[in-house]
């Protein structure tokens, strides 16, 4: 599985959505992505990439796109792989 697939999968599992709907998502866009869902998403991402995110990054993770940026810049996740 590519890193992008793993990343998308974390959203799919946390919010029970279709993979095609993930890239446009923003925090609080859908009911499932509330503060409870957010912590579930973070747990999924941490497990998928074996990382431990900092609290500031968890707060900054405000959209699918933003999350990609954070993971690639601060946690060495290469989305080209």
């Amino acid at each position, binding site marked *: 599985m590519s890193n992008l697939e793993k990343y998308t999968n974390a959203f799919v599992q946390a919010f029970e959505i279709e993979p095609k709907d993930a890239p446009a998502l923003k925090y*609080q866009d859908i009911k499932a992505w*509330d*503060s*409870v869902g957010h*912590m579930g998403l973070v*747990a999924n991402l*941490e497990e998928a990439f074996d990382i*431990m*995110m*900092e*609290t*500031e990054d*968890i*707060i900054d993770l405000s959209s699918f796109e933003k999350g990609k940026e954070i993971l690639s810049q601060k946690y060495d996740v290469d989305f080209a792989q």
Partner: protein
Amino acid sequence: MLNYDEILNIAPYSLNKNEKEKLLFDGLFDLTKYHYENCGNYRKILNTLNINFDALKTVSDIPFIPVRLFKEFNLASIKEDEIFKTMTSSGTSGQAVSKIVLDKATALNQQKTLVKIVSDFTGASRMPMLIIDSPSVIKNRLMFSARGAGILGFSIFGADRTYALDEDMNLDLKAIETFLDKHKGKPILLFGFTFMIWQYFYKELKKLNKKLDISNGILIHGGGWKKLINEAVSKEDFKKALKDVCALNNVHDYYGMVEQTGCVYMECEYGHLHASIFSDVIIRNTKDFSLAPIGEKGIIQVVSLLPESYPGHSLLTEDEGIILGEDDCPCGRKGKYFNILGRIKNAEIRGCSDTYEKH
């Protein structure tokens, strides 16, 4: 209005008395005006009190309203369709509960503020987290109780979050031991409400004669001492009891309320509760509400820069407290430090950790 993001960049215990007075006064003055314009019920209250905005010169001049008004009236400064979340205070059956409405901006600022304050005590990195409560507390996601909001707010500091109690508030020893085994040797964060920890964690461990090694844990607990005072359990007893059953050395109480979620008052290494730059405590004489000097007990007023969606930026609580000092706590944190003495007489008994009635 104040730019809250800029304030979040200031270290939470870095301002001295004069610097903090200026920051708070400017912010609170703006909030008072904002809520006056946006909340009809709040406007009526200030009109009844004959508030003259030009006469407000210091933080202590900012008008305060009794916290119980949130139980009796709908106090919101946002429209119905902007409500993102409603939080309720704890309240046992038969008691009225406070309803606090949040929009997205205020909810986000609460979380950011909590992170700034608590990180000062726990460090920036997250830790495996054991929540001394039942997962059933956060089931209803649109309507949070104070307990649910507390757990969720503090969850951001934890990884591999594990609940120490099952759905029926029984000690889940298997889950706890698996968790401790997995994270052996690592720093661990424990979180819970004071009474729950005492009743469903400590007492059960004691009853089972079970000792756990959580010597590398840091426990943050809040929600009030009312029920424990009834059982004649002091702060020292609480700490000693936990040291006995699970070797915990690092225990921090916090004072906070659902009406001002986010800006909690954390207990430092010297046992003092501290006000951060985002909020403050003011002690008032019970007879005439005049300012009480350092070292004199009175009713606690709390002010906070956070509440934008509801007029809760300046509240008279039903708690009694005493300021111990300002800017000179041996722990090095600036700002006021204080102790809570309990509830004022004739106030309703109420506190987050006191609301669970086992049937």
